[in-house]
């Protein structure tokens, strides 16, 4: 706990120092990034201690404010989430020190670093807070700090719009959370004490669960509340996107899991609800990721997909607890937690790599990039690692989590009543579909950016980024590879938290843990075997090619020489078969085609956009209707002094009449 407090202190001191440094860019960067690095290191140590210790540590300080004391507690569930929450921002801070250099003359960096350090500290506080008031304050500070960071380039219109959408979304979520905590407090509970049996009515736990699902689900980016995510994450500076997408959205998953611990034994429909939302999020995320034309938007939708996978794991876990099936419960929860850990690494890595591309070329449009692998070897290598991780392919780290989820779904589908078998089958289908589509999206992201010929002058002029930005990417990639080769290590970190979550399922916990560990070990063997196989193939290729002349030709030129770069595959054409297949779902894909006509065709064009179904089909009509209603009372705001006076007099008269009638 002392380490944790020291980490918070260092973070806040660094942030304040950066704020005071203001426009002195070098000093602000040193203080802000240094604070994040040191604080992150201390905090990660505290989190590791929290995972390894048997008992949770608590700090409780009396306070005169309502809702009692300041109480911080690091139990094993908090610690599992705290580990990436401190590690990823510490690495991203090194990267940010290089990334923000671009603005050192035009912009005060002190404010940005202040918001960054405060964001990290508030995320940690959210995970450790137990009292209602401290939690909500930390939650709001987290939202505001990230809003300030999202709107870093606020002179651009789309950045302001995205910030606005984010602010509205996060406040809607917090509104649900306020009601959640009020009801929870009414039933005698808070984030520390479960609600007591006699204080709670029959429907209360269910209502609380739904509120938590809406409130925390908004932050997690679960469909249909995900619409802010693909807006806000792409426009933020890349190290901030990495922190937001890799870590911050996972506080939402933490909130949902924590809430289920407090609300008593879960009925069947909680698990089904969470699982269903997870299925929808996974499919929506991966399909829309497939159709994006902007690298960071693609990654943001991929985050929606992965959060959906975590939700499916949590849903299966809840179903297992409700059905008394320990194996399903433990496998489901450990899949969710392990995937959370892995996602924080590879998604942060992907966003940092995307930022490096942006830094080097100035654009993220897939159709202007290409051929960067030769110009940015390091970035390309780490991007490949991240992409394989996101596509859940061995030997990278995304594989193990999804393997555990597959195992949980199989266990649920194989030998259980229909309440378990049905959702289990659904998860199997979804995961299979999403895995294939995620691989396609990965091919699109990596292929369009790094392979082939440069499609635009920006890509032609690209240079590799400097080492402060490369080092954290390499470290994250090393983490991805390590967790991919030794998934059992990751599982050991999360296993105790999963046991806590799956506690209500019944006997047989040790058997289940052993089964999970065995699976993870086998995933590691598979990764190693694949690595060995790949090395053998490479060796074989070398042997076969020895002594022959080997020529290099343009990629995707079909053997022709000197093909025009515009004639090669584009990002869209790489995934066109998949997108065409899902046209009924991606209904909003309307290509605007101006075909070439006549014998001497003039300029022709093709353009396809895939807007978010939920945003355009649901939220925009809702908000437009709402705005229409709220516009009506503005007719009262007339501007004429006489009318205002008339309002006052009429009100007074009405009050007089009311009092008259009332006293009679």
């Amino acid at each position, binding site marked *: 706990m002392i380490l944790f407090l020291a980490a918070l202190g260092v973070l806040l001191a660094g942030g304040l120092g950066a704020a005071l440094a203001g426009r002195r860019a070098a000093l602000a960067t040193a203080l802000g990034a240094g604070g994040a690095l040191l604080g992150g290191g201390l905090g990660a140590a505290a989190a590791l201690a929290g995972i390894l210790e048997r008992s949770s540590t608590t700090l409780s300080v009396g306070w005169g404010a309502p809702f009692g004391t300041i109480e911080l507690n690091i139990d094993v569930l908090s610690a599992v989430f705290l580990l990436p929450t401190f590690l990823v921002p510490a690495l991203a801070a090194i990267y940010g020190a290089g990334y923000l250099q671009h603005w050192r003359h035009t912009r005060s960096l002190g404010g940005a670093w202040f918001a960054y350090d405060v964001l990290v500290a508030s995320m940690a506080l959210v995970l450790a807070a137990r009292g209602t008031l401290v939690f909500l304050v930390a939650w709001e500070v987290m939202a505001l700090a990230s809003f300030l960071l999202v709107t870093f380039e606020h002179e651009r219109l789309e950045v302001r719009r995205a910030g606005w959408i984010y602010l509205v979304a996060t406040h809607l979520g917090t509104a649900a959370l306020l009601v959640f905590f009020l009801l929870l407090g009414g039933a005698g509970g808070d984030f520390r004490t479960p609600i007591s049996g006699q204080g709670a009515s029959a429907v209360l736990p269910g209502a609380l669960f739904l509120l938590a699902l809406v409130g925390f689900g908004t932050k997690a980016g679960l469909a249909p509340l995900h619409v802010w995510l693909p807006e806000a994450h792409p426009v933020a500076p890349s190290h901030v996107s990495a922190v937001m997408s890799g870590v911050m959205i996972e506080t939402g998953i933490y909130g949902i899991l924590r809430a289920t611990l407090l609300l008593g034994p879960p009925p069947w429909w909680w698990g089904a609800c969470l699982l269903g939302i997870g299925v929808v999020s996974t499919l929506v995320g991966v399909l829309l990721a497939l159709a994006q034309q902007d690298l960071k938007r693609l990654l943001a939708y991929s985050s929606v997909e992965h959060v959906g996978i975590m939700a499916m794991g949590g849903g299966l876990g809840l179903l297992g607890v409700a059905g008394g099936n320990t194996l399903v419960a433990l496998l489901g929860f450990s899949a969710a937690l392990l995937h959370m850990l892995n996602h924080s690494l590879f998604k942060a890595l992907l966003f940092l790599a995307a930022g490096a591309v942006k830094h080097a070329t100035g654009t993220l449009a897939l159709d202007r990039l290409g051929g960067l692998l030769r110009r940015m070897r390091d970035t390309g290598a780490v991007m490949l690692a991240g992409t394989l991780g996101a596509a859940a392919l061995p030997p990278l780290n995304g594989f193990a989590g999804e393997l555990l989820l597959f195992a949980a779904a199989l266990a649920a589908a194989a030998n259980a009543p229909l309440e378990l078998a049905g959702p289990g089958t659904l998860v199997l289908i979804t995961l299979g579909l999403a895995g294939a589509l995620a691989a396609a999206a990965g091919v699109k992201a990596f292929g369009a950016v790094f392979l082939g010929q440069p499609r635009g002058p920006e890509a032609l002029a690209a240079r590799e980024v400097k080492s402060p930005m490369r080092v954290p990417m390499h470290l994250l990639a090393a983490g991805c590879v390590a967790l991919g080769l030794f998934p059992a290590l990751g599982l050991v970190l999360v296993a105790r938290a999963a046991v806590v979550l799956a506690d209500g399922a019944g006997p047989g916990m040790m058997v289940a843990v052993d089964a999970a560990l065995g699976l993870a070990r086998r995933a590691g063997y598979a990764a190693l075997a694949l690595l060995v196989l790949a090395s053998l193939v490479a060796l074989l290729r070398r042997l076969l090619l020895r002594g022959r002349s080997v020529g290099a030709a343009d990629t995707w030129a079909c053997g022709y020489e000197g093909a025009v770069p515009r004639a090669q595959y584009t990002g869209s054409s790489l995934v066109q078969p998949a997108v065409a297949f899902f046209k009924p779902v991606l209904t909003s894909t309307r290509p605007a085609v101006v075909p070439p006509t006549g014998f001497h065709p003039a300029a022709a064009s093709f353009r396809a956009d895939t807007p978010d179904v939920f945003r355009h089909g649901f939220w925009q009509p809702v908000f437009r209707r709402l705005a229409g209603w709220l516009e009506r009372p503005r007719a009262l*705001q*007339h*501007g*004429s*002094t*006489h009318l205002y006076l008339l309002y006052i*007099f009429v009100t007074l008269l009405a009050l007089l009449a009311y009092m*008259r009638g009332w006293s009679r």
Partner: protein
Amino acid sequence: MTSATSICLILVVLLSVGVLSATRLATSIRLVAAQGVVLGILPPLVLGGRVGLHVVAFAAGAIAIKAVLMPWLLLRAMREAEVRREAEPFIGFSASLLLAGLLAGAAFLLADELPIPAPDAPLLVGSALATLAIGALVMVSRKKAVTQVLGYLLVENGIFLFGQTVAGGMPTLVELGILLDVLVGVFVMGIAIFHINREFDHMSVPELKALRD
């Protein structure tokens, strides 16, 4: 004595109606001044034999401020700002009068309902309410800023009348406070009118609509 009070009260209401019906601003201001005089001599009448020194002093003060100082300020502001002399109503004169009659009738009806004892002057509450209502009507239905000040003064006179229902009058300090308040209000408005006129070349409140958000 009661009849004298009643005559005074009816005079107050009639003067209010007069302010509403006057076509020229100067006339309206003078009518308000006349109402001030009547209001000044009203407290001694209501109190009858129990007239003390402070009541007389207060009546003199009220007359000095309501009947001399404020009208003089307003007339001066009008002259300085070169306000056109017509009242420029939103609601026509006959319609205003009709409304004023209705409001006065409603006020007297309401006064009977209200549980306020006025042993010495039965018309007191009614005429107070009527003056208030007509003042409000003046504020709402006339375009010029000067007329709004006049409506404000009428409302203040209504409140003054209401104060008379409290036996022995309001405490001196409160009455002085109200008087001072009104004086400052009129001062500020007079100056504001003058300055707005200088800056924008007009003084009709509807033109200020452009200032809304």
